[in-house]
């Protein structure tokens, strides 16, 4: 893949991640617990991670979070996204590096670490420890959505053919 092709693909994936972020914002919270989300954007991050590489996945997610927060969010939302997003991307990169797990396992780990990041920010912002009790519920939802997103991500990855 030439440098130009790589740049173009990175840009397209970042744009796709932003659109998916926006789409997800339009889905009303269907559970009573804040933080329960599908994590559609993670499909893009997974594809970037497996098709392009670790750095690309990380920066696509950074660009996505910064731009989406500026366009549709506020500073609180940014704090939550960046903490959850960075932690989950780092955990996914580490887990992928061990090469003991498939895309699904990596995605599940990413999902639950996203929850951990968000809870940490909530604990700091609200100055309360009580919120940590939401973690088990968030984890169960994170495992389910992470698995679903992981399967979708794996299917997408297997269909993308990169010409050398």
């Amino acid at each position: 893949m030439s440098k130009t092709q790589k740049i173009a693909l990175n840009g397209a994936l970042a744009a796709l991640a932003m659109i998916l972020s926006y789409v997800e914002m339009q889905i009303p919270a269907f559970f009573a617990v804040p933080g329960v989300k599908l994590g559609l954007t993670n499909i893009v991050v997974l594809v970037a991670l497996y098709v392009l590489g670790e750095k690309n996945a990380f920066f696509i997610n950074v660009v996505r979070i910064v731009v989406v927060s500026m366009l549709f969010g506020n500073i609180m939302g940014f704090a939550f996204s960046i903490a959850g997003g960075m932690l989950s991307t780092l955990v996914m990169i580490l887990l992928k590096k061990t090469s003991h797990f498939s895309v699904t396992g990596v995605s599940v780990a990413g999902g639950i670490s996203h929850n951990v990041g968000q809870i940490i920010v909530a604990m700091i912002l609200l100055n309360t420890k009580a919120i940590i009790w939401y973690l088990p519920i968030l984890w169960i939802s994170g495992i389910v959505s992470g698995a679903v997103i992981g399967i979708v991500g794996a299917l997408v990855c297997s269909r993308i053919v990169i010409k050398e």
Partner: protein
Amino acid sequence: MKNTLFRKNDIYLIGILLLISLLILGGVNLTKKSGAEVVVSIDGVEAYSFPIDEDLEFEITGYDGGTNLLIIENGYAYLKEASCPDKLCVHMGKINKEGQSLICLPNRVVVEIRGTGKTKSEDDYDTVVG
């Protein structure tokens, strides 16, 4: 693509994580007793405290002027109305057990159920957090 959809390790990972979540969830629900006090904190500072066995309707003014309507009824506390757009706290339902809480992030309001004095579950919970 050498990655299949599921590998053995993935199943172990998912299984172990699910088990941990369920154990914590079950443990929390079994050990919890009904609380005695409803404590309202705004931006991390304890502001009000009400007994849970007295019916009450109270408007909380949170951070930045946002409001939440706290209702205490038949030994349960819940938030009936909120000024924020998402109303997540309203959907969080009714709480009555020690340690349970209702949280409104935009208004930085935390409504927490407490027991009287320090209890065993309070101690556990401090160790978990470190």
